[in-house]
């Protein structure tokens, strides 16, 4: 397995390089260093000298990808792309264009994101599996039909509606929890997290339950289930011991791959609930044309996604003894 992991990490390097290059090209197709400087300096009284000074102090005065002037060896290294990219591979994100240290900001902002994402994932998966198994148990009954209709209704409602409706009902009308806010003290933070977690879970029930129900129904049609029933096992035992265990592979695929991405947070939830997470970090950076943050977050997102895929592969070996990574 070790050789497999090393090989996957080596495969990841050209992918990360390509993602970084693509981000760079896409960003600078839309924005020029002059425009970045103008936006950072404010909208009033910005002089060409101030723009030049900003570019020099932030390292944007060099050519983008290819520098014709220096010695041949430096033609690719004395560029914005090289300067801004090389440290990324050491996970040194440097400073944002507004002066803030990106690594420090990420380390501060990922915890509130995780504080919502982790309970939503755990409670959501458990609840979805429970509902899906219930529906599978009562398959082709009115309970199953009603459950499917309810799931479709839940899936059809926008997540924004859940948030605004939840805030209106729970916080504004019933006065049960604060509408928005956060606290770094975990105990104090609970009252702020309750509503976004409930809404996150409810918002995901429709699609999650239907997805797991499909998996369970597929498993329940297989021969080993028929054999289990034929040898006289009760329905509860068949479902919880055999079907659930065998359905873990597709469930794990879906869950483990998103684990590393939980750091990245949710834009809408965090905005409406005032959670100081990473959800809006990239969007804010795109709006303020802060390339340093954009490239760092895209790089981090790619790296975490690759990590998620590797973890998924590893998790297969844990739930399916037939799989060996070599």
């Amino acid at each position, binding site marked *: 397995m070790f050789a497999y992991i090393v090989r996957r990490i080596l495969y990841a390097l050209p992918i990360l390089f390509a993602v970084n290059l693509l981000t760079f090209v896409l960003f600078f197709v*839309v*924005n*020029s260093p002059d*425009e970045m400087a*103008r*936006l*950072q*300096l*404010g909208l*009033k*009284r*910005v*002089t*060409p*000298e*101030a723009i030049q*000074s*900003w570019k020099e*102090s932030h390292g944007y005065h060099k050519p983008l990808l290819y520098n014709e002037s220096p010695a041949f060896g430096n033609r690719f290294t004395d560029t914005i792309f090289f300067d801004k990219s090389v440290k990324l591979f050491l996970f040194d994100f440097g*400073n944002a264009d*507004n*002066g*803030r*240290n990106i690594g420090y*900001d990420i380390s*501060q*902002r990922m915890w*509130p994101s995780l504080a919502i994402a982790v309970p939503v994932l755990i409670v959501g998966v458990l609840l979805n599996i429970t509902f899906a198994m*219930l529906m599978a148990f*009562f398959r082709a*009954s009115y*309970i199953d039909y009603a459950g499917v209709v309810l799931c479709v209704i839940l899936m059809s409602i926008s997540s924004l509606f859940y948030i605004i409706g939840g*805030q*209106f009902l729970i*916080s*504004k*009308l*019933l*006065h*049960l*929890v*604060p*509408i*928005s*806010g*956060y*606290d770094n003290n975990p105990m104090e933070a*609970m*009252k*702020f997290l*309750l509503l976004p977690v409930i809404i996150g879970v409810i918002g995901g029930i429709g699609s999650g339950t239907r997805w797991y129900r499909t998996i369970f129904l597929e498993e329940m049609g297989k021969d080993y289930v028929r054999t289990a029933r034929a040898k006289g096992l009760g*329905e509860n035992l068949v479902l919880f011991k055999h079907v659930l265990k065998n359905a873990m592979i597709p469930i794990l695929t879906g869950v483990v791959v998103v684990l590393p991405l939980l750091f990245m947070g949710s834009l809408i939830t965090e*905005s*409406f*609930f*005032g959670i*100081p997470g990473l959800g809006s970090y990239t969007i*804010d950076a795109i709006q*303020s*044309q802060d390339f340093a943050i954009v490239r760092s977050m895209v790089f981090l997102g790619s790296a975490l996604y690759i990590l998620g895929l590797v973890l998924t592969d590893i998790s297969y070996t844990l739930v399916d003894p037939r799989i060996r990574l070599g």
Partner: protein
Amino acid sequence: MLVSCGESAWNNPYPETDKGKNILYSSFSERPKHLDPARSYSSNEVVFTGQIYETPLQYHYLKRPYQLIPLTAVAIPEARYFDSQDKPLLATANVDRIAYTLYDIEILPGIQYQPHPAFAKDNNGNYRYLDLTEPDLRDKFTLADFSDSGSRELLAEDYVYQIKRLAHPKLSSPILGLMSEYIDGLGEYAVTLKQAETQLQQEKGDGARLDLRDYDLSGVQVLGPYRYRVKIKGKYPQFLYWLAMPFFAPIPYEADLFYQQIGMDKKNLTLDWYPVGTGPYLLSENNPNLRMTLEKNPNFHGETYPTEGEPGDAEQGLLADAGQALPLIDKVVYSLEKEDIPSWNKFLQGYYDASGINSDSFDQAISFSSHGDPTLSESMREKGINLLTGVGTSTFYMGFNMRDPVLGGLGDTARKLRQAISIALDYEEYISIFLNGRGITAQGPIPPGIFGFKDGAEGINPVVFDWVDGKIQRKSLTQAKRLLVEAGYPNGREAKTGKPLLIYFDTTTSGPDDKARLDWFRKQFQRIDVQLEVRGTDYNRFQDKILKGTAQMFGWGWNADYPDPENFLFLLYGPNAKVEKNGENAANYANPNFDKLFERMKNMDNGPERQKVIDTMVQIVRDDSPWIWGLHPLQYGLNHAWYKNAKPNLMANNSMKYKRIDPELRDRLRQEWNTPVTWPVWALVLVLLLGLVPALVVHRRKTHAVGVLH
């Protein structure tokens, strides 16, 4: 339930320990980019910097028109004029003779800085934290992690140090370009600092610290511990207004050297995020992604609430605290609220003390009387909420590119075309439909509250309006169409070729939310048979078009830096054009008569003579119509009954110190308004439990089913 069951309401977002305390709660929607006074220029930044830093001058909180008064200065500095031979001149001397102006600024002794580790000293009197290495910073993440702090007296050299910082190559101060035109030697100083920094980098690498005390700036001089001098090229009376802006706040060299130490920026320990001032508040918590907290500066030198205001202030209770020691509030908590809905609801629940009114909540908050005057809605009045209105010292206009071959130029044809469009675009309707009436139609570039503005019949723009029966009335479309014919476009078609007149409007707002507004613009043009094509573009392309002068029509705005007509009329000054000169004259308007009068007006003192010149200038631009004058926004604010001394002051950045709250009343009303309602939760639990019954029945039937063989 996870919420606490103490006395405080369950939905209270603040800690229980805050109860009864003299704390003001407010919000901000966008994190401030800069808190360094050399870089900060946005209104959402001065909300903080204005309370922390103290400039030599400030605006009187209550008096109108806006009036400068001393803050840390002993008195308003007097301008002394000199000719090129260094001979003193009288204040009435011809501007052409004035080679330079001297301002000697004397500050009050005994003012202390807020506690800060940069001032901390060891037993030998040496600074503790000005010679740190990276390992020393290993366990330092905020200023609170430095065990010691100190303070020292505010000195004139700190103001001089900050003026030097405006030229620092790493700071890219937004006003360096402008101030280099006025402060003697500042432009050259920027070049010197840049060279010095490059040399230092080469010699010492990343650890190099640029100590500005080693480099003299000719235009600024320390005359003593409490006195400094600024030398201005020529005459620039508006300089006094700049002395009330945070750009000219003091920075102690210790703080600058402290933050320049290697490793500080990796911990986000910079002057841009941890200001050091002498003002009534210090920034005790800086987490712009969540909350920013100002707390009373224990070293504040003391100031008292004004004892006089304008007529009516006493009746409104605005002088109730006259003579009281400032600040009146101990702590201010600003929470980040990116979305309007939670922010508005928290205001209604009493968790924010004051609020603006967004479009979505306007109808809930405001109703209009039979005379069309805005009043609070019944539900707001029941809560004891107060409404404050004020006309913003801003202008939002639609500009014509004066370099455009169709719309531009001072010729009769294009001028009449612009005038016709100006009449057709009914801004009264725009304000009514899209701004809920929150604006007044502009009659020229100068907004109300600024010297030079005229109200009533004598203030109307005769090109677009008539004064009929004591009321302002927009000219008819017939007159607009007549002007169009005179411009050579009868029925909206070019007379010579018969081609329809098509005008392009560039805007950055072209999303689905803006569709109604842009459709309205098109409809306005159609009323005079002119076609308008909206070119939606992103911010960068838009800026590029304006800089290159390739846009034909565009929307633009300006918010006053200071209450002087020069700050608005310079937007139409020819040498200040966007194209080629990179100025703020986005329309690229250039009229030699206007420019000549501007050069005269900008150096004049307010008075009848200046008013006369301004009237002539305004008349010229009204006639040339380089802008459709647009609107001046009307700002509406709401505050709760416990929030006192609220008076809109659009110039003062440091007005927090005058505000007062009644925490007892706030606590009582919050409790009253936020009683938890729990029965729906229990009802839901009951419904779910009942819903389980049929499921259990089916389950029992399935698991106990007996197979029957036939």
